C-alpha cells in the first residue's frame, strides 16, 4: 500500500483575537438596558403600594373603579373599530393599486405614504380645524350650502366616532401597504392556475387572491389595532373635549400632580399584555399554512381591467385620500395664513403674522427644531447601527445567543410608546443612571421604539445578500468585521439609508413617549405642537405642522432618490 503523503499545513490560528464577539456582547447589553430594564421597573411599580410594599391593590382598582375600567373598554372599542375600518377601506385600495389598471396608481401609493408619515396628532388638530362642530370649515361650508342656522352641524370631531375616524385616517396605511405589497409579491401564476382550471374572476378572487392576501390584511389590521390602542396624541386632543378618556390619556393624567406612578404602571400592563397576546394569536391563526409562496419564478400578476370603472375607482380612492391628506393639509395651510384659524383665507384676512410669530417671537421654536434634528440624527444613526449588527448576527447566526438578540430587538413592538415612557421615567430618574432632563433619555426612547421596524427591514436586506459573498472575502483573509464592512455594507447601502430615514421620520412624529420624558431644555417639535394645542394656539400649530411635514417629505424624498439612483448599480448579480 502506498501512503498518500500530502502534507496538510497546520491551520494557522490568527493570534489577534476576532473583535466581533465582545462587540456582540456589548450590543446585547445595550438592548437589555433599552428594553428589559424599563419593563422590569414598570412591573415593580405596578405591584407596589405607595409605601413600597407588595400589593395587588393597583390592579384591583383598575378593574373595579369605573374611572379606569371605562377608558380600558373605550380603548378596546376604539382600536377594534379603527382596525375594522382600516381593513374595509385599505384592503380594496391595496388591491386597486396592485392588481388593476386604475389610473394614477403610483400617485395613490405616494399619497398613502404621505398620510403614513403625517403625525397622527397633527392630523387630529387639522381635523379639529375642519370638523369642530361650529367653527370647523366643513361645518361652515355645510351651513353655507344648506342655509342651516347656528348650532347645526354635519360633523362633530369631538366625539367617539370622530376619534375613531381620525385614528383610522392615519392607521389605514399599515393595512394598505401590507396588502398591496403582498399582492405585488403573489405570483400571477397562482391566479392563472385557478383560471385555467375553470375559475371565473370572482372564484379566483374569493378562493385564491383574497385568502392569500388575508394574512397580510390580518397583520395590517393587527398593527392598526395596536397603533390605535397605543396612540396618545389624537385622543389627548379629541377625547378630552368629548368628555372621555382612553387608556393612554388616563395613564398620562396619572402623572398629573399628585402623581400616582404605581397606578400608571398598573394601567400600562393591560396594554402590554394585550399586545403580546395579539402577536401570539396572529401566529396561531396562521398556523401551519405556509403563506410564503412556494416556487421560484416570480411571474407578473395579471392586471384586472376595470374598463369604465377605472375612473370611478380612482375617484373613490381620491375621496378616501381626502380624509388623511388633502383636507387636513388644506386646513393647516389655511390656518397658517389666516388671521382667524377657522376663517377661509381671502384677501382681507391674509397674513404673514403667524409665520412671523412662530419663527421670530416663539422662543421655543428654535430649541425644539434643534432638539428634533439632533435626536432624529442620533436616533437614526444609533438605531440603524444597532439594528444592522443585530440583523447580521441573527441572519448569519454569528453567535450562539442570536435568537435572544433577535427577540429583544423585536420585543418593543409590544411596548406602547407611553408605557415605554413610563418605564424609562422610572429607570432613569434614579441613580446610577440619572438621564431624565437630558436628550439621552429621549434618544433611548426613540431608538427603542423604532428598533423593531428597523431590525425587520435590515434583516430582510441581509437575507438578500448571499452569505457566500462574505465567505468569499473571508477565505481571502479578511476578518469578519472587514468582510462585513467591505462586502456586505456596500450591498446594503440602500436599505441602510432607507432605515435611517425611516427612524428619522419616526422620531419627528413621536409624541407619546416624548411627552412623558421631555423637560424644558429637551423639548421637541411634537411636544411643542402638543403644548400649543393645549392653549388653543392653532395658527402657530399650523405653521409648525407644515414645517414638520416639509422636513418629513424632504427626508422621504431623499430616501427615495437614493433608493432609485443607487439600487440598480448595487443590486447583487443573481
Amino acid at each position, binding site marked *: 500500500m502506498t501512503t498518500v503523503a500530502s502534507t496538510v499545513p497546520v491551520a494557522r490560528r490568527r493570534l489577534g483575537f476576532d473583535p466581533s464577539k465582545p462587540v456582540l456582547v456589548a450590543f446585547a447589553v445595550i438592548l437589555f438596558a433599552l428594553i428589559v430594564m424599563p419593563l422590569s421597573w414598570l412591573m415593580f411599580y405596578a405591584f407596589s403600594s405607595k409605601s413600597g410594599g407588595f400589593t395587588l391593590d393597583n390592579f384591583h382598582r383598575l378593574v373595579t373603579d369605573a374611572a379606569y375600567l371605562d377608558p380600558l373598554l373605550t380603548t378596546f372599542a376604539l382600536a377594534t373599530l379603527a382596525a375594522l375600518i382600516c381593513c374595509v377601506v385599505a384592503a380594496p385600495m391595496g388591491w386597486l393599486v396592485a392588481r388593476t389598471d386604475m389610473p394614477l396608481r403610483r400617485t395613490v401609493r405616494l399619497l398613502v405614504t404621505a398620510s403614513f408619515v403625517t403625525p397622527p396628532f397633527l392630523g387630529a388638530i387639522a381635523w379639529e380645524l375642519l370638523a369642530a362642530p361650529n367653527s370647523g370649515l366643513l361645518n361652515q361650508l355645510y351651513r353655507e350650502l344648506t342655509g342651516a342656522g347656528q348650532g347645526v352641524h354635519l360633523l362633530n370631531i369631538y366625539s367617539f366616532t370622530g376619534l375613531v375616524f381620525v385614528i383610522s385616517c392615519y392607521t389605514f396605511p399599515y393595512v394598505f401597504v401590507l396588502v398591496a405589497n403582498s399582492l405585488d409579491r403573489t*405570483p400571477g*401564476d*397562482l391566479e*392563472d*392556475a*385557478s*383560471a*385555467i*382550471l*375553470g*375559475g*371565473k374572476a370572482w*372564484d*379566483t378572487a374569493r*378562493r*385564491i387572491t383574497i*385568502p*392569500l392576501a*388575508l394574512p397580510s390584511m390580518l397583520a395590517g389590521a393587527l398593527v392598526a389595532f395596536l397603533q390605535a390602542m397605543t396612540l396618545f396624541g389624537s385622543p389627548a386632543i379629541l377625547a378630552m373635549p368629548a368628555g372621555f378618556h382612553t387608556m393612554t390619556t388616563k395613564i398620562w393624567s396619572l402623572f398629573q400632580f399628585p402623581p400616582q406612578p404605581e397606578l400608571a404602571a398598573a394601567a400600562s400592563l393591560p396594554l402590554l399584555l394585550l399586545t403580546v397576546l395579539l402577536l401570539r394569536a396572529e401566529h396561531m391563526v396562521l398556523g*401551519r*399554512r*405556509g*403563506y*410564503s*409562496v*412556494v*416556487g*421560484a*419564478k*416570480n*411571474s407578473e400578476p*395579471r392586471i384586472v381591467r376595470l374598463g369604465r370603472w377605472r375612473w370611478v375607482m380612482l375617484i373613490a380612492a381620491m375621496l378616501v385620500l381626502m380624509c388623511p391628506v388633502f383636507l387636513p393639509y388644506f386646513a393647516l395651510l389655511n390656518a397658517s395664513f389666516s388671521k382667524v384659524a377657522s376663517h377661509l383665507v381671502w384677501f382681507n384676512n391674509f397674513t404673514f403674522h403667524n409665520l412671523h410669530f412662530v419663527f421670530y417671537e416663539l422662543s421655543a421654536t428654535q430649541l425644539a427644531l434643534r432638539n428634533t434634528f439632533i435626536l432624529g440624527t442620533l436616533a437614526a444613526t444609533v438605531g440603524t447601527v444597532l439594528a444592522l449588527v443585530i440583523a447580521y448576527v441573527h441572519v448569519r447566526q454569528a453567535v450562539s445567543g442570536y435568537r435572544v438578540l433577535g427577540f429583544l430587538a423585536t420585543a418593543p413592538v409590544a411596548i406602547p410608546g407611553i408605557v415605554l415612557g413610563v418605564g424609562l421615567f422610572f429607570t432613569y430618574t434614579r441613580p446610577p443612571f440619572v438621564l431624565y432632563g437630558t436628550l439621552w433619555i429621549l434618544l433611548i426612547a426613540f431608538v427603542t421604539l423604532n428598533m423593531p421596524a428597523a431590525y425587520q427591514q435590515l434583516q430582510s436586506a441581509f437575507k438578500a445578500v448571499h452569505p457566500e459573498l462574505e465567505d468569499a472575502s473571508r477565505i481571502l483573509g479578511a476578518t469578519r468585521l472587514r468582510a462585513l464592512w467591505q462586502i456586505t455594507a456596500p450591498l446594503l447601502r440602500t436599505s441602510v439609508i432607507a432605515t435611517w430615514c425611516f427612524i428619522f421620520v419616526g422620531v419627528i412624529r413621536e409624541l407619546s413617549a416624548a411627552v412623558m420624558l421631555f423637560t424644558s431644555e429637551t423639548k421637541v417639535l411634537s411636544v411643542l405642537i402638543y403644548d400649543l394645542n393645549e392653549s388653543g394656539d392653532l395658527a402657530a400649530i399650523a405653521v409648525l405642522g407644515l414645517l414638520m411635514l416639509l422636513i418629513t417629505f424632504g427626508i422621504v424624498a431623499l430616501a427615495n432618490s437614493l433608493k432609485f439612483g443607487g439600487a440598480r448599480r448595487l443590486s447583487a448579480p443573481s
Partner: protein
Amino acid sequence: MASVELRDLTKRYGDVAVVDDISLTIAHGHLVCLLGPSGCGKTTTLRLIAGFVEPSEGEIRVGDKLVSSPTHSLPPEKRNMSMIFQSYALWPHMTVSENIVYGLKLRKMDRETIGKKLDAILATTRLAPLAQRYPGELSGGQQQRVALARALIVEPETLLLDEPLSNLDANLREEMRFEVRRLHDAYRYTTVYVTHDQSEAMTTADLIAVMNAGRIEQAGSPEEIYDQPRSEFVARFIGSSNVIKGKGLDAARIDFAGTPLRCSGAKINSGAPTPVSIRPHDIGIFATQRQGENVLLATVVRQVFLGGSRDYMVEAKDGTQLRVLTAAGENIPQGSAVWLHLPPERCRALNGQ
C-alpha cells in the same frame, strides 16, 4: 379532446414581436414540445394558447372552435385546458388534497365523485400519504406531482406544461420525464410542453417545434429534428454538431478547405456560402491515408479519453476545428496527421443565412 391549431400567430409588445408569425398544428392526442432557448417566445406561445395573452395577429383554434384572435379571445377559464406552471403555482394556503380537487369543485361535482377521483389520482401520482400536507411542507418532486395531479384530475381537452421539470434536480428530472410520457400515453390529452432542455423534448415529444427569436425554425419528429436539421441554429441546439462553412460547387457538393464534399439536405447553389453540419460521432478518423470521396486531411489538436469513447479536436487545413468522437481504442497521439471521412448522407447542407 381536440386538435390545437395556431395560424399566423403573432404577439407584439410595442415594436418587438415576441411571437412572430407562427403556424403549427397539434394533432388530437399528440404531445408537442416547444423547444428553444430562453427568450425565444415559447412561453408566450403557451400563454397565448392558454388565453392569458391575446394575440396581435393570427388565431388559435381548438377543434373547430376559434378561441383566440385579435378581436375575440375566450378567457382561460372557459377553454377547458389545464396547465402546469414552472413554479407549480400551488396554492400555499390549501392542503395537497384541496389543491388537487379545486378544479373539480369549480365544476360543481358531487362529493362522492370528487372523492373517488381524488383517491385515484393520489394513487397514480403516489401522493396519498401527503394528502393533508401544505405545499410548503413538500419537496420539489412532490410539489411537481401535486401540480401534475391538479392538472390531470379535471380531464382537460388540452394540457399545457411550462418547463415543469426545470426546478427539479437532475436525477428526479430524468425520472419525471418518463413519468410525463407515461401519463400522457395513459390519458392521451393533446399536450403542449414548453422546455429549453432538448433531451427532455426528445424523451417526451411526438413532435418537436424548435423556436428561435419568436419563430419556429423547424418542426418535426425527434428523429427528423436530430438527423435532418434544416438550419444552423437547429443543428447546434439539438445535440452537438460541427457546422463547417463551405462554398457551393454544384447542386450536391461544396468546397471545404480545398476538398469537395458531397452533401445531402438543402439545395446547394454553386458559389454561395453554404453551412454544413455533421455530428462528431458520424466522422470517421484514420491514422493512415485514405482515398475516396469526402476524405479530408487534418491534424490532431488534442484528444481526451472519456472511458466509453475518445473525444478528438482536429484542425483542417483552413484552420477550422472539428470535434470527432470515436471508439476508445483508437488512440492517435496529439500532433499526428489524420484522415477524416465525412459520409455524404451525414453531411447536412443547411439553409444559409
